[in-house]
């Protein structure tokens, strides 16, 4: 059969089950080159028109760290003792948290920004998701360089657990992207979703050990312990900074649950694109 054969029909039954499950992987493979190209394009263009360029990647997390350090030092907010120097704790926390939030918003943002092309050219949509992931990896990579520098200066040394760090990092991206793909189609129809997500992540951040430690007996601490993001976040930070694993079974369990969620999100995203194109036009 012709490898380029395509059948477009309203009747879902006519499409073979095989193509429903194999097509996503084929498209994913086909989208690699385009995803890379889109990433290069977006990174180049976003920094070419700015004076400070790539430095902007550092500036936001640095400001965040400074604010929380000031709050802590001035005693406005009393934060329990952290196992590693507080600046490292906040910096890793905010960095890892932004990996999650960026992954969550990325499918929506990426798709919105290429809406005009989506309605005119047929290309593997996976490229949009993938390029979003690449951009986050690029940002995170740069932040990690700064992070390692700071850690060494402050005397925090990673140990062999560092080998596991990528797993935890990918888990955060995996979680973000899975839900991001589920939310993106709704967000493309209704602008409300794009406003709700940042608000919700803000709330979620205070329920997670991003800027303060999970310690004690308060309600918030209990919420934090149940929060499925906690093990991802805590282990990512611990493995990066030479601490030990925590809630490891919870960590594994969440990742297992994320696998079907991720595939559901992916398939949902794929089937929704023609519907979005239909409703939003060119």
């Amino acid at each position, binding site marked *: 059969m012709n490898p380029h*054969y395509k059948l477009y*029909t309203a009747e*879902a039954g006519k499409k073979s089950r095989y193509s429903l499950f194999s097509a996503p992987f084929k498209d994913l493979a086909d989208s690699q080159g385009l995803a890379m*190209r889109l990433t290069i394009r977006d990174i180049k263009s976003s920094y070419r028109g700015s004076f400070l360029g790539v430095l902007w990647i550092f500036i936001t997390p640095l400001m965040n760290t400074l604010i929380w350090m000031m709050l802590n030092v001035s005693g406005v907010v009393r934060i329990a003792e952290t196992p590693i120097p507080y600046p490292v704790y906040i910096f890793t926390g905010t960095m890892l948290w932004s990996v999650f939030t960026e992954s969550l918003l990325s499918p929506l943002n990426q798709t919105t920004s290429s809406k005009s092309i989506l309605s005119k050219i047929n290309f593997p949509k996976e490229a949009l998701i993938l390029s979003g992931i690449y951009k986050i990896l690029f940002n995170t990579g740069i932040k990690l360089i700064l992070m390692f520098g700071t850690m060494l200066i402050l005397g925090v040394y990673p140990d062999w657990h560092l080998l596991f760090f990528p797993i935890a990092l990918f888990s955060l991206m995996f979680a973000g992207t899975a839900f991001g793909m589920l939310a993106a189609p709704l967000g493309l129809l209704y602008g409300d979703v794009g406003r709700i997500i940042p608000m919700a992540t803000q709330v979620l951040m205070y329920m997670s050990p991003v800027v303060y430690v999970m310690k004690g007996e308060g309600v918030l601490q209990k919420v934090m312990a149940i929060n499925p993001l906690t093990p991802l976040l805590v282990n990512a930070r611990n493995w990066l900074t030479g601490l030990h694993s925590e809630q490891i079974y919870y960590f594994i369990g969440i990742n297992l649950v994320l696998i079907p969620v991720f595939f559901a999100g992916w398939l949902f995203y794929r089937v929704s694109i023609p519907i979005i194109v239909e409703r939003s036009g060119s």
Partner: protein
Amino acid sequence: MQEEVLIRAEHVSKKFCRDLKKSLWYGMQDLGKAAVGISPSQQLRPHEFWAVNDISFEVKRGECLGLIGHNGAGKSTLLKMLNGLLTPDKGSIEMKGRVGALIELGAGFNPILTGRENIFNNAAILGFSKKETLDKLDEIIAFADIEDFLDTPVQNYSSGMRVRLGFAVAAQMKPDILIIDEVLAVGDMGFVLKCFNRMDELLKDTALILVSHSMPQIARMCTQVLLMSKGQNQYLSNDVSTGITRYYEMFGEEINSFSEGEKVDLSDITLLSEGNKGTRTENLLMDYAAPLEIQIEITCREAVEYMWVYLAFYDKEQRIFAEVNNFTDALTLKRVENKVIVSAYIPSLPFAQGAYSISVGIGEEQNGARRTLLRSQSAIYFTVHGKHHGWAPIQYEPEWKLL
């Protein structure tokens, strides 16, 4: 190979919703259905209508289907379905082969980046790998012919330059199926011709679908036309000329040409060629270089002292390109009263294939000054059938000699 059907559309229909809020809500419902794998309903919901209604056709390799119709006839929606951007609500579309679409040139261009960088962006979106793009880079640059601006940000390009670059990239596609949606409207003359030559090369072994409002373009390239109106198939045939004529007729009704003058009325007009007859309602189909007789019936309400008749030929772009008149006393019409039929016989009309219209002007000359009594734009349409599909409406067949 030549006979294989590459595009097959069967009873394709697509709904559309006019109301935004409703449309978004229906979108949500469709998303919900898609999530659980239910086909969308085939009934119209409130505020919906069929934008494309029960369209079927086939295109083989080497053939070109011209898609014509008014704005909003559903052409673009149909193209989007063929390209897989929209899913049909009814029916099915089979595409056998690599699909290339020229629906928007320069997709993926980023204004801040240079022309050279954007070649890669555009190529990637069109499905080229980095290696393929590198291999074809020189050819693309040569085709676009904008070397001086290659390292300038695209935001400083003129729209024509952007189109040049976009087409240069797209022209490198080697598709089995090519979909073109009137993108060649911009660009200077030289570039447009270059694009057509390129498309002619591609046409040999692709199945092509062309949407255009330019009838010479349709007449020149297509082997089949589909005339759409309100989403429906109005005419589908290999007889391209008739399709084009039907298209003009759709406008003909809107531009009702028969006007009454103050002193005279143009009561009838008839065209005759080799035993074929054309009237206002039934277009004449004549052969290339055949004779044409134009008969005009004029009713005078008052006597006209010294009447002149003027005829002008227009092509489908409404460009005037030929005139006929009796100003030089070829026929003297003195003291014309009541009804008169004037005939103008042209022994050979060397027009290119296509549809044409004739405008009629009738006037009076008094004391050496001409005054128009009546003017009827597009009084009658006719179609020339023949081997010449040129850009110019007049195509000569000279006697060639090698000296």
